[in-house]
Structures are given as structure tokens and as C-alpha cells.
């Protein structure tokens, strides 16, 4: 019996491996194409038929992107906005997530449903009023014009993730702390957080990625070149007739690779975060 099933498994492997290879090619080829094109000479990026390998390999596109164009500026802007919004989301999300997981508040379920709806609410419906509001308080073309809306729009999902994590942490230590009269903030800091850091990490990566990729609000609120983020810079680069793809991909590689590495290192947390909602139902 055991023999038969092992035999069967081995036979399946070749088919599975072939399928896995197809999956690999499906995902990897477009990525390879972007990276390879970034390392071609600007003239060879537009070669027809295309070069399959960059020959000669060149970093000229990177020079054009970062010294003749302001992609460096866009990346710095993206980092500032994404880091600030992520920090705010984590602090506010931890407090709210803890409260909704542990404290007997009425209407938690309703709030959670509303939060879920806000996190999927189409941005287009709020962009114009937010634009008018930001203009009235003089915040257009600033970092806070993106940091505050990002915090608000990405908090709901973070609260969901964090609440699910807190629910899975055993109660006992907290209760004894409470009986000892410990201050709730202190309880969160010294008892909950040390156990919940994988959840915090997941929430952080999600929020950061969401801020890093957000386009519509960044496009609408920060028109000035000094405050453009990477997606806006990439979308608006080039004219209607020619897009300098080499330069664009050099900048894109720099914008994609750090996140790729981050996601790769923390793949376990990311996967568990992606599935947190699914598991909890």
C-alpha cells in the first residue's frame, strides 16, 4: 500500500514539475524582460527584432533616470510618504485592533463591516471632494496631502489584520496584569506587542505596499514635480508619442527590487497576512 502510493507520487512529479516550470515562466518572463531592458543601451531598447540578452550590457538608462531625470526625487518622496503613513497606521491600528479584539464594546461587528467597506471603497468617489478639502487648507503639493489620506484608507485593513492576531493571543497574562492594575497602554506595550509582532509586521508590509503603489490620489493631489511619487513619475514620463522605456525600466527596477527583496525575506508574514482574512472567514 505504502509502496503503491509512493510509486504514484513519483510518477506525478514529472507532470507537476512541468506545470511548475510553466508557472515559473509565466511569472518570471515579463519580470526578466523589464530587468533585461533596463540594462540595454537606450538605442537597443527600441531594437527590432528585440535583443533577448542585453548586449552590450549598460547602466546608461540608470544614469539617465537618476541624474538627468528626477526619479531619485520621486523615490525619496515615495519613501517619506509610505514610511510616515505606515508608522501612523501601525500606532493607531494597534490601539484600535486591541480594543476591538479584547474589550467589550457594543457594535464592534458593525464597525468592522463598515471598515471592510471603506477598505474596498473606490477611491474615485472621494478624490474630488478630498482635493477641494486639501486645497482649502492649503495642503496640495505636500507630503501630508498623501500621508493623512493613506493613513485613513489603509487603516481599516490593518485593523482587521491586527485584530485577528490579537484574538489568537491567550488572555491569561493580560488579565493578571489588569488585576494588578496595570495601565492599558502599558499592557499593550509589554504583554501584547511582544507576542503580536508577526501581525504588526504583516500589517506594516501591507500598508507600505499599498502606499508605495497608490496612484490616483498621488496623481490628483500632488501635481508639482517636487512632491510626485514613483507611480506618478512613471505614469507621466515620456510624451504621447514616445515613451523612453529604457529610462523608465531603470527607475522601475530600482522601485520594484527593494520591495521584492522585502517581500521575499518576509514571505511567511506576507502569506499569513494575505490569508488572515480567509482563515478567519
Amino acid at each position, binding site marked *: 500500500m505504502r509502496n503503491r502510493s509512493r510509486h504514484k507520487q513519483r510518477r506525478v512529479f514529472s507532470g507537476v514539475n512541468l506545470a511548475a516550470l510553466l508557472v515559473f515562466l509565466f*511569472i518570471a518572463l515579463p519580470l526578466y524582460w*523589464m530587468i533585461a531592458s533596463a540594462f540595454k543601451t537606450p538605442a537597443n531598447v527600441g531594437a527590432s527584432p528585440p535583443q533577448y540578452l542585453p548586449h552590450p550590457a549598460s547602466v546608461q538608462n540608470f544614469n539617465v533616470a537618476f541624474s538627468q531625470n528626477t526619479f531619485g526625487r520621486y523615490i525619496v518622496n515615495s519613501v517619506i510618504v509610505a514610511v510616515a503613513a505606515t508608522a501612523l497606521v501601525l500606532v493607531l491600528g494597534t490601539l484600535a485592533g486591541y480594543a476591538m479584539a479584547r474589550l467589550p*464594546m457594543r457594535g464592534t461587528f458593525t464597525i468592522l463591516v463598515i471598515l471592510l467597506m471603506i477598505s474596498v471603497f473606490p477611491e*474615485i468617489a472621494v478624490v474630488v471632494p478630498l482635493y477641494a478639502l486639501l486645497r482649502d487648507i492649503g495642503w496640495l503639493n505636500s507630503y501630508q496631502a498623501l500621508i493623512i489620506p493613506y493613513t485613513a484608507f489603509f487603516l481599516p485593513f490593518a485593523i482587521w489584520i491586527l485584530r485577528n492576531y490579537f484574538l489568537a493571543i491567550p488572555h491569561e497574562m493580560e488579565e493578571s496584569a489588569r488585576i494588578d492594575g496595570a495601565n492599558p497602554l502599558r499592557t499593550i506595550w509589554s504583554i501584547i506587542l511582544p507576542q503580536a509582532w508577526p501581525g504588526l509586521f504583516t500589517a506594516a508590509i501591507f500598508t507600505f505596499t499599498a502606499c508605495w503603489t497608490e496612484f490616483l490620489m498621488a496623481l490628483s493631489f500632488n501635481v508639482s514635480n517636487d512632491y510626485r511619487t514613483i507611480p506618478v513619475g512613471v505614469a507621466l514620463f515620456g510624451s504621447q508619442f514616445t515613451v523612453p522605456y529604457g529610462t523608465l525600466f531603470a527607475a522601475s527596477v530600482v522601485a520594484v527590487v527593494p520591495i521584492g527583496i522585502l517581500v521575499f525575506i518576509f514571505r511567511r508574514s506576507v502569506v499569513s497576512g*494575505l490569508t488572515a*482574512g480567509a482563515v478567519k472567514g
Partner: protein
Amino acid sequence: MSTRRSDVFRRKLARLGWGLSAPALTVIAAVTVFPIAYAIAMSVSNVNATGSGFSLSGITGSNYSIMFHAAQWRYALFFTIVYTAVTVAVEVVLGTAIALVLERLSAGRGWMMALLLIPWSMITVINAQLWGYIYNPTYGILDTVFSHIGLGTPVVLGTRVPAIAALMVADIWKTTPFVAIIVLAGLVMIPRDFYEAAEVDGASGWTAFWRITFPLLRPTIALAVLFRVLQAFGLFDLPFVLTSGGPGYSTQSLAILAYNAMFRDLDFGPGAAVATSTALLVVIGCLLFLRVFRAQAEREA
């Protein structure tokens, strides 16, 4: 006496809960409630753009009436629904297939997972430019591939159906991995002995999938579908960069239409009507789904 005391204690804890939630809920409300209310107000008023903002006057149904009578809106609604249905269906089938493959993979599963996460974490706008390069009519790789296999050189982004298909392919490439990862997480939680029992009964792989795997995966898949449907309904970044809604308005999604109406044509009232009704459709869809999902869960329990 003791119940009174625990009652007081509970109330104290509830107050503490609201206190801790207040900062988050305030920020969310401040940034979302006013704009949503204002967008609704804009959609039912005569909107005049003035030097210092907007002035709304009177209540009118004319914005919605303009919207309902516009062929562009009807087409955008049709396009968005078809696009959502097709991409989500393909992503779920393909994503489930990929998850089944990865689950059986003996080595390198971690690496494949990491690879799958890269398209998911990629900036959509960059994804759009990358596919724009692939589809380029003069030096795109797709052209070369097509002429090698004797299919001529199609004008991908310049004709309606190929342009829609091209958008879908770019979307499917970026989002299928997300579905695959969610389904894979559901798969690994199915106990082994379920399959062993099926094997003893002599069930084929295909039967085992439909009898065991699929029913157990259904809640996971349903959640992935919900997220994807709601996201796809707000489709904006991809057509904005790849096709600008063209050729003509054949890839103009509801969000692109609303954006063009408000930011390009400065038709704020009708634009707000399009945006608000899109949001309303998303909210209704979400509520319906939650209701069906809970009813189903209760029936199964």
C-alpha cells in the same frame, strides 16, 4: 452585588475600548465621511467650479439623468462588468490550478511563493508600462513572437477587442498570484486523511477535487473572489497608462470615465454621479456577498 460590580467593570472596559479606538476611527471618519457625503451632495446638485472651490446650488436629478442617457456611461458600465467577470473568473481558475501544482511540488515551494509575491507587490503603473512595452507595435516582443508563429503583426492596443484582451492579460499576470497564494493557504489546511479515504474508495483525482477539495476551499475562494471583484470594479491605473481608455472609449472603465469627466472636462456634477453610483454598486455588492456568505455558513454549521 457581584454582578453589579462586574457590570460597572464591563462598562469601564468598554469606555476604555472606545478611547483606544477613537484616534483611528477619528482619522478614518475625518478623511472618508466628509468626502463621501460631499460627493453624494455634488451628484445631486448643480455644481459650479469657482475660483476658491465649488458652489453647490439646488437639488437636481439632472446629473443622474445625464449619466443614464450617456452612451459612454452605459458602455463603461458594460465594460467594467465584463472586464471584472472575465478577469476574476480566469484568475480564480488559474490561481486554483497554480495552487494545486505548488501544493504537490516537493522542492522549491518557498521560492515559487516568493516569486508569486513579486507581481502582487509591483506598482500597477509599472506593470502597465511593462506590458505597454511588450505590446509596442514597432519593437514589442509580442509582435516578434506572433510573426515567428505566422500570425502576422496585430495592432494590439489600437483595436477594440485586442486592447481589452491586452488589459486583461496584464491584470491576470499581476493578480493571479494573489489568488494562488490564498487558495494554497486554504489547501494546506485540508487534512491528509480526507484524501487517503478517497483513495481507498478508489476516487480519481478529478472526483476527489470536486468532492473534497473544492467544497472545503469554497469559503477561501469566495473571499478571494470578493476582494478581486471589488478591486477590479475600481479599475483605473492600468487603462490610464496602457490605453488612456482608448481606442475611442472602448477601454474606459467607470473610474476612468468619472476621472475624465471631473478632471479633464470639468463636468463635476455628472462626474460625481458616475463616481457615487460606482461606489454604491461596490457597497451593495459587498453587503449582498456578506449576507449570502453568512447564510451559507449558518446552513453548513
